[in-house]
């Protein structure tokens, strides 16, 4: 059917398109800034006015991944000529790549911090969403005594800024030896996200008609089987949305990661700013680290985009 639209509808449409463009630009600008800076040579990263047209370089990434040290004198011409291209860009900045006794290039701290971020964020997301889903199902389907109070209590853990408890948490963590451990951060982030996950999943669970499970119960399944075979697939959209939010929170957390971790379990957020350079601040390297750090969230969200966009009302329930 051809849509017939009035002039006011067309006018409104145009305004909407402009608004969407403006909002998109506002949201994409910082990402563009980080991405472009990540490929800028060090001396162009901080020019005023900003350099928009430049020859992109991979050097910030080389510097990001390799351990470097400051050089007193410029590299000798022979040394310079013998070095591979990616090492020369480090020489150009007055630094050199640190090698061990066998001449192996030493990694910087970034890859391990990145891995820590992945471990902590993924594990805490799985835990928070998993426990949240079960809890929400319980609240949604069964008569729980004091349900409203319990839900309020769960939510109340979010009623003060988490940083307020940072110092006591730090002392407690030190006392029980959870400082600078993956487990410590995972517990912390799971606790942060759990209340959010319970509330969000409760909303999604309430949306799933209980007739689905009842049909399964009558059809010869236990409640547990009905939960896994009927409720979980129906809740996939909600689980995906909750997981994205929990993942982003855990992935981006800075303050606690800075306080609670130093080396072994340190995540990328506190590490990146510590790489301002072994001399002057090297913003290109920081931008490169940030740029790579953006990717997992972008990929995760992209993979789940269908779930995030699809409405809940695709079912076969007739009211």
């Amino acid at each position: 059917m051809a849509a017939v639209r009035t002039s006011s509808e067309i006018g409104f449409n145009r305004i909407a398109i402009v608004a969407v463009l403006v909002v998109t630009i506002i949201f994409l600008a910082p990402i563009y800034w980080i991405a472009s800076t990540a490929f800028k040579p060090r001396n162009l990263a901080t020019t005023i006015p900003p350099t928009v047209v430049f020859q992109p370089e991979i050097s910030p990434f080389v510097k990001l991944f390799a351990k470097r040290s400051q050089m007193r004198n410029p590299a000798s011409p022979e040394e310079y000529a013998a070095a591979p291209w990616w090492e020369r860009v480090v020489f150009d900045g007055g630094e050199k790549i640190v090698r061990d006794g066998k001449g192996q290039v030493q990694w910087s701290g970034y890859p391990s911090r990145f891995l820590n971020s992945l471990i902590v964020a993924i594990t805490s997301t799985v835990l928070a969403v998993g426990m949240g889903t079960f809890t929400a199902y319980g609240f949604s389907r069964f008569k729980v005594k004091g349900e409203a109070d319990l839900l309020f209590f769960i939510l109340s853990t979010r009623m003060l800024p988490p940083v307020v408890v940072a110092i006591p948490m730090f002392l407690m963590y030190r006392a029980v030896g959870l400082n600078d451990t993956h487990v410590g951060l995972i517990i912390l982030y799971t606790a942060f996200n759990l209340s959010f996950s319970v509330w969000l999943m409760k909303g999604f669970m309430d949306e799933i008609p209980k007739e689905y499970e009842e049909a399964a119960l009558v059809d010869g399944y236990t409640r547990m089987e009905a939960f896994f075979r009927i409720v979980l697939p129906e809740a996939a959209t909600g689980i995906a949305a909750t997981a994205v939010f929990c993942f982003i929170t855990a992935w981006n957390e800075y303050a606690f990661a800075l306080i609670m971790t130093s080396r072994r379990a340190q995540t990328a957020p506190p590490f990146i700013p510590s790489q301002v350079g072994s001399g002057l601040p090297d913003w290109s390297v920081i931008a490169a680290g940030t740029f790579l750090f953006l990717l997992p969230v972008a990929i995760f969200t992209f993979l789940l985009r269908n779930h995030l966009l699809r409405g809940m009302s695709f079912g076969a329930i007739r009211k």
Partner: protein
Amino acid sequence: MTQIELRGVQKFFGAVQVIKDLNLKISDNEFIVLLGQSGCGKTTTLRAVAGLETIDEGDILIDGKPVQHLKAADRDIAMVFQSFSLYPHMSVYENIAFPLRATRKSKAEIDQEVRSVAKTLQISDLLAKKPSALSGGDMQRVAIGRALVRRPKAMLMDEPIGALDAKLREEMRAEIKRLHIKQGSTTIYVTHDQIEAMSLADRIVIMHEGVLQQVGTPDEVYSHPANLFVAQFVGSPVMNVADAAVAEKASSASVTVGDAAAGFEFPSALLSKLNGHAGGQLALGIRPEGVLIRRDAAEGFMAVETQIVEPLGSFDIVDLKVGSEMLRARTKSGFISGPGEKVFARIDPTQAHFFDKASGKSLEVRL
């Protein structure tokens, strides 16, 4: 062979009693319809039989064995929901196969049974589709298929066609009846639609506010309603009910409706059959087809004035003013042209019902 029996079943939701001392015996292959308004306890009763709702007192017996403590899964009963409840993430095939997957049947057996049920219901070409791609009628066929496939001891249906539009509802009604005759299984069917109940049921169970009002064949329930509630709930258009006073005349009895000046003539046998209730507070019930109308005066007919005429196609419903009461009569279409006509009416004594106003119970007068 499945008999279901409810014995003294009571159910409370908090302080509200939704089922009050319900006793009912359903024999093998019987098609029972629980009929009542929403909130009368009929769906709760059905869910209690299914095992989706616990009961507070009484017994539910299937084939003589109490099952009220069994889980729904262990009662071997199938249920069709008003919302159909097809699992949206599964294909039609998977939906029908789902109950079989809970058993230890082999893949080949399951496949064979799914296809055979699909064939019976003429939905073989839909097996690969997702429920969201189906029409309402097809969804219902799939839901029935999912219930049938396991060959359960009994089928429970909770307003299974209530969500369909009028034409489809009529089609599916006939289909459910055909299927029941063909497959023959003990069935409990819940509806608030008395036409559905009349057309499908072997016996109708009418409930009101958690209390069983009457159990009987459609004909019994229609012709001999046990009380005022059943009288007015069953039948469309609704039965006329008016306060009535019975008086003795020379060779007959006279029934005056409301504050009308004159009474309708009844055989004198009425007085003896009323059995002493004649002087009490009575209500007369008469279905529109029991109010007879003619244009010219005749013995026993009373002059009345027509009010509104509702043409319903195959017949008309005419409102007649009798005193301050309104009696609705069923006439041939076009018999009365409009309001304000003077016609003559009488009440067919064989179709009249008398109720005790205080208790609402029928006085079982049959003339």
